[in-house]
């Protein structure tokens, strides 16, 4: 085989996906960085970079970032997003661990089926899964009536389950749970049961066997599952939009409003950059922690 032939096939394989993703992923991402330093256009969109000569706003500015830091409200919404993401991740971890463990310790021939059972609900449409909770938590449904009946018996005012932070959290956990179960299972499946036998022989009780053997070994799975839950929750707008009240706005909702509501694209871009930086920081942290988990 000739060298030109080899180079040609290398190019034919690598160039099309690279060029497509450069054009439709990298360039748009860079445009957003640029947009975060621009002025809003008169009729939405972005103001021009070059001077149009009519005295209107143009060129680059730090105004959007100044505006972000001028009002603590924006940081507060970001912090709330972090809080919701952290709570969702923790609840997912608690719910996922027994399931992942059960699958990993099941006979080999059952494991694929159990994994499929975890994937199937997650394969149904995301909005449908959120909508299901609108029904379950709705004021006419049995759950809300039971809760409010109980509250009433103690002389307390009725509460709304739907359109509350509680509903948002339930939705977040429900939608992202498989993302925690699957990496945890992949990790737990690889553990050698001999380790637990050894720990038992050395006198460790069930709790010690979990806490000193299984848990530390499962940390890489915990970290990758946590990243897969935390990051999408951080940017989520649809779940607070559907299940949350007006005060449950997260950073995703704020970004959405800038682009489709108030039409301040540059500020929307600035918020996107803030979110991107948070995600990159978290991804770096997860990679670093994952490495530490494997060596430690």
């Amino acid at each position, binding site marked *: 085989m000739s060298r030109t032939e*080899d180079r040609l*096939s*290398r190019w034919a*394989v*690598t160039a*099309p*996906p*690279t060029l497509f*993703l*450069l054009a*439709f*992923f*990298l*360039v*748009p991402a860079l*445009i*957003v960085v640029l947009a975060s330093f621009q002025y809003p256009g008169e009729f939405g*969109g*972005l103001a021009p970079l070059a001077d149009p000569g009519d005295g209107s706003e143009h060129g680059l500015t730090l105004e959007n970032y100044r505006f972000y830091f001028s009002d603590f409200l924006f940081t507060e919404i970001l912090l709330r997003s972090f809080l919701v993401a952290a709570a969702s991740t923790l609840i997912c971890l608690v719910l996922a661990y*027994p*399931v992942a*463990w*059960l699958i990993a*310790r099941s*006979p080999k021939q059952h494991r*694929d089926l159990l*994994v*499929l*059972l975890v*994937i*199937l*609900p997650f*394969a*149904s*449409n*995301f*909005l*449908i899964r959120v*909508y*299901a909770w*609108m*029904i379950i938590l709705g004021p*006419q*449904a049995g759950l809300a009536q039971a809760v409010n009946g109980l509250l009433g018996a103690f002389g307390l005012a009725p509460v709304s389950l739907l359109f509350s932070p509680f509903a948002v959290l339930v939705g977040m956990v*429900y939608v992202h*749970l*498989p993302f925690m179960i699957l*990496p945890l299972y*992949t990790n737990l499946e690889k553990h050698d049961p001999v380790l637990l036998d050894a720990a038992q022989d050395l006198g460790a009780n*069930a709790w010690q066997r979990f806490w000193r053997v299984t848990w530390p070994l499962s940390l890489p799975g915990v970290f990758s599952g946590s990243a897969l839950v935390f*990051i*999408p929750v*951080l*940017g*989520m707008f*649809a779940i607070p939009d559907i299940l949350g009240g007006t005060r449950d706005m997260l950073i*995703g909702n704020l970004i959405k409003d800038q682009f489709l509501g108030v039409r301040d694209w540059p500020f929307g871009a600035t918020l*996107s950059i803030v*979110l991107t930086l948070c*995600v990159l920081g978290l991804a770096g942290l997860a990679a670093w922690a994952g490495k530490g988990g494997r060596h430690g």
Partner: protein
Amino acid sequence: MARLPIWLRLAAGATFAFLYVPLAVVVAYSFNDSRLNAEWVGFTLDWYRVLFADQEMLLAARNSLFIALVSSLAATGLGTLAGLAMHRYRPPWLPLLVITPVAMPEILLGVSLLVFFIQVLHLTLGLLSVVLAHITFSIGFVAIIVRARLAGMDESIFEAARDLGANPWQTFRLVTFPLILPAVVAGFLMAFTLSIDDFVITFFTAGVGVSTLPLQIYSMIKIAVTPEVNAVSTLLMLLTLVLVAAASRMDRSFMKGGA
């Protein structure tokens, strides 16, 4: 199995119930003879009749199928190449380009494409912009599945093909492609499912001109919930069920790629 304590099995069972009960509720209420999703009144197929008479919904379904077909075909081609390139030539930038759009919160890809389409390409948002957006996020999933398949294969087969005088194109057509075909088909089904299900990125790139099933469902649950939503949800669930079952039959690494 014997060493699993009973409380652990109960906890796992409860979590499985948590996963399935809400979907069962949606399906059940799609057959409920009541306008309210509150209590069981009686069995009916009325909501399916309403659904199939809903012109907007049917148009949205047609758009969804068209977008899913075109975008998943293109993403399968590009994603297969990306998987091959990552396995064979390992350009250092490619994994980053392929994985990042998948790993970022969807809203970031959505808004960046919105700005790009309008501000740079001066494109009127519609079918084309949605198709391009769906290709962008689907490539990564196809590439991951194809690369996983390649990683599990014996390199000496390709060397043998070369030693027997096959040129790169012949090696690909006669050896590599038949071997990775199950992964390619699984990737296609995955891309199709992702496209037909996508809400967030479609929401930003569809504009006012074009609607898809998820967009239609969203506007219905935001404005007025009727059990018609349950009916369309049930049918859509059935469709993805078939697609996912088909994909996991084709290729086991699909499960890992899907995670």
